[in-house]
């Protein structure tokens, strides 16, 4: 086994007309790695994936899969890749069985291999009861599974999954994540998402992409540490605002307090504390001891939007 990366993306730029959907993106993916691609909509995730799968050619730069160039050796690359586009396009007038057989055939699998893998992926993706059903009659969640089933059918070296958990119910999301995680090791997987916790659950490494450029590349746990250097807490308290602010400030660990008055003598307070310290109990105690009414107390987890805001502004600073 060589140490050569499975996927090499080198200074990749893709224009749509004059508009660069991605510009100067460079990263590698090691064999067997599960790489997360995190970014808001229109960040360039799908475009990057389309270049890797050979659907769109790069405008500038090169992309290699297992050493094959996606433009010059397009057929070789396409043989190695299993792909599920974001919209999970399927032939709605085919049965699951026929569809899998068709996808297997055009990917050059032997008839025997198709028969064997058809039943294997059906089992892995829990499609047994819909094996003979028309795809058009399946619910969104099951179509998603068919999409994954066709992507892994030919046991591809590289698996590219564009937003595989979007639009399916929570139980299926959990199952899909487990499935993707289990595919790592034998397959090299690139999975895009805009859900932060999802990345830490299934990926070994994360690339955050924003407006067509890579903002950061890191392991999910490091990323969380970097992003959450502080804890944010929101409170709503009934009481004299000036006194409340003073008391809250005096709680050890609180770095900053701001407030906005509400009706009925109440006010909302936004607190910033040191990371790794849960201040909620101390804060509750402080408020109650002074006889004020504690209406609400909640730790705030950062939304993806805030994270992007922070990452992009940090880059500029």
């Amino acid at each position, binding site marked *: 086994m060589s140490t050569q990366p499975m996927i090499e993306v080198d200074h990749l730029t893709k224009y749509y007309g004059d508009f660069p959907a991605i510009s100067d993106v460079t990263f590698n993916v090691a064999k067997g790695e599960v790489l997360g691609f995190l970014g808001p909509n229109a960040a360039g995730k799908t475009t990057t994936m389309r270049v890797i799968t050979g659907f769109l050619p790069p405008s500038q730069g090169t992309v290699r899969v297992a050493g094959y160039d996606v433009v010059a050796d397009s057929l070789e690359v396409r043989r190695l890749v299993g*792909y599920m586009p974001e919209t999970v396009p399927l032939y709605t007038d085919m049965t699951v069985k026929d569809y899998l057989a068709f*996808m297997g055939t*055009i990917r050059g699998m032997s008839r025997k291999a198709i028969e064997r893998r058809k039943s294997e992926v059906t089992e892995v993706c829990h499609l047994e009861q819909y094996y003979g059903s028309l795809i058009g009659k399946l619910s969104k969640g099951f179509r998603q599974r068919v999409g994954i089933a066709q992507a892994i059918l030919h046991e591809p070296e590289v698996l590219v999954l564009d937003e595989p958990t979007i639009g399916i119910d929570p139980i299926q999301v959990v199952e899909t994540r487990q499935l993707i995680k289990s595919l790592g090791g034998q397959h090299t997987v690139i999975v895009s998402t805009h859900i932060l916790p999802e990345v830490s659950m299934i990926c070994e490494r994360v690339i955050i992409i924003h407006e067509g450029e890579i903002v950061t590349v890191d392991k999910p746990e490091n990323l969380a540490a970097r992003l959450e250097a502080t804890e944010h807490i929101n409170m709503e308290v009934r009481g004299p605002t000036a006194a409340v602010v003073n008391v809250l400030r005096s709680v050890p660990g609180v770095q900053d307090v701001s407030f906005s008055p509400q009706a009925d003598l109440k006010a909302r307070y936004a607190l910033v504390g040191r990371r790794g310290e849960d201040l909620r109990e101390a804060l509750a105690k402080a408020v109650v001891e002074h006889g004020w009414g504690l209406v609400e107390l909640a730790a705030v987890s950062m939304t993806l939007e805030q994270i992007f805001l922070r990452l992009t502004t940090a880059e500029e600073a």
Partner: protein
Amino acid sequence: MRNIRAILRKELGTYFASPMAYIMAGVFLALTGVFFVNSVDQPFAEASVRGLLATSSFFLLTLVSPLLTMRLFAEEQKLGTLELLLTAPVRDYEVVVAKFLASFVMLASMALATLFYAALLAYYADPDLGPTFSAYVGFLLYGAATLAMGLLASTLSSNQIVAAVVGFGLILVFTLVDQVSNILSGTVARVLERLSLSAHFDAFNRGVIDTADIAYFLILMAVFLFLTIRSVESRRWR
């Protein structure tokens, strides 16, 4: 070859699974029935399919071909399945050829059904089998050329109606181009006349199989299939 067969089988499955194919075959047969009766139900009528196929090629192929091909690429673009098809290790020309063959099989099976009229003639009269054969050869070549045009139109839009209308327009131009030559003269008129689909079909219908006419239909078909392949490829440089 294996890819072409797989895609061809899938497309035929889709044709026969949808009501569209049956409706079209029904309309096709109803109209050819009218044309047939019109061509034989007159004084001194001759026992031939000439009138039937002349009218059919002119009126039906212009309409039926774009309807047969409109779905082939437009729907895949709309559903997004083209993305999966083209990221599979399949060459662009294999996709185009397979889809073309699927539409041709559909058209040929409709034409096959009209052999019923020829059989009817053979039962009641003594038709000349030579011209009947040549007319069907011509009809299928005519059909193949128009299907290639319809297929190109289908790659140009993700809307089936748009694809059908563009295909219809394209075929109509090649059907009627010799009408324009009537008001022109000289070389231009002769070239336009030579470009016309219906003019080249006439010889077949008279019982003449001319290699020039065969070449005309095959070249026209090849050119439009080539353009279709380029159109599918164009996502690479667009």
